[in-house]
């Protein structure tokens, strides 16, 4: 198995080639999956746990991967379903109030990053996943297929979410 431009090509199914493909997937997609999970739970440790679970599933399902979708879409599907399975800690982190950052802080960029993730955490579960994939540059057709929505529906949602985020950032900067 080899990966070229996000497409997994099957050559042999030997365990060493599987491991090599998995290594590449792990390196290429860890940050993307982690960010998607962060967008959903807004907690570093928890997001790492979900990302790890996602890669465990990827490793287990890799020999059965049918290449009906690009490998990225397939991984995002697993990650989304893993996020949606999260229950125990959900009430603790999501929908928490968005704090105003300390303006005197020297870590402006870091504060802005955290603010963006906090804003996303206040959205509905569906919107959190949609905007996370949108910001990860996943095509809207693929987001629609993962979420089971029409493409136009995704487009409208993305537009509304971005408006909300822009509004919140304006307030934050004031």
């Amino acid at each position, binding site marked *: 198995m080899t990966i070229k431009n996000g497409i997994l090509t099957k050559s042999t199914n030997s365990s060493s080639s599987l*491991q090599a493909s*998995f*290594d590449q997937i*792990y*390196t290429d997609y*860890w*940050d993307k999956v*982690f*960010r998607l999970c*962060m*967008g959903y739970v807004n907690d*570093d440790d928890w*997001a*790492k746990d979900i*990302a*790890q679970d996602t*890669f*465990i*599933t990827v*490793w*287990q*399902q890799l020999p059965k991967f049918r290449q009906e979708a690009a490998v990225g879409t*397939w991984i995002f*599907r*697993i990650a*989304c*379903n*893993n996020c*949606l*399975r999260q*229950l125990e800690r959900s009430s603790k982190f999501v929908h928490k109030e968005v704090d105003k950052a300390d303006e005197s802080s020297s870590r402006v*960029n870091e504060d*802005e*990053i955290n603010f*963006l*993730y906090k804003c996303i955490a206040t959205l*509905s*579960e*569906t919107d959190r996943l949609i905007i996370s994939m949108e*910001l*990860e*540059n996943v095509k809207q057709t693929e987001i629609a*297929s*993962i*979420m*089971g*929505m029409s493409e*136009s*529906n995704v487009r*409208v*949602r993305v537009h509304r979410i*971005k408006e909300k*985020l*822009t509004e919140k*950032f304006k307030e934050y900067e004031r």
Partner: protein
Amino acid sequence: MNADDKFQELWRSKKSVPAISSQDLIKKVGQVKNKLRSKIVFTTLVLIGVLLYIDIFVFQQHPPKLVTSYIGAVLLNIAIIVQTAAYAGFLKLLFENASTDAPIHDYLQHMMQVRDRRRFMQKTILNIYYVCLIIGIGLIFIEALQNVSNPGIRIALPVGAACYMGIMWFTARKNEIKKSEKDLGAVIEKLQAIVEDTKHA
């Protein structure tokens, strides 16, 4: 810089180092599998040991005189075998088949199918287990009580056993079914809400 680019830049600035390497992750998956396999093998061996002890040692050393005791022993064997088979493999297989890479609405359908199959399996298996166990113990008790001379014990023993079995049937069995359905039910409820939400723009 427009808002879109800014969000994207901020979003991508978030980086994380994986807690373990890909090789360690593969090893970990293997270890978990081995651990689970060992646990299943150990539980199965213990239950087979209990069966052999009852069937060979107890019944060979003290051969029962009544047919009811033999029927009771057979029912106990069935109960233990059904329980072992169900928990060691069948239900685990149901979970492994969950299509984790399906679109959300298909995933929901799959989870609901798993829940229904699991509900059916658990109810049927647990019912067989408890019915066999209760009737089996009851039948073995008939002969056991004949050997008890103390009239107080002759009454207290079956009454105590009946109470214990009543608690198992009405409380333990129901709790076990409820507990196993709780988490899956919560996930399904959440998925249903999300699927409903995706229908609206």
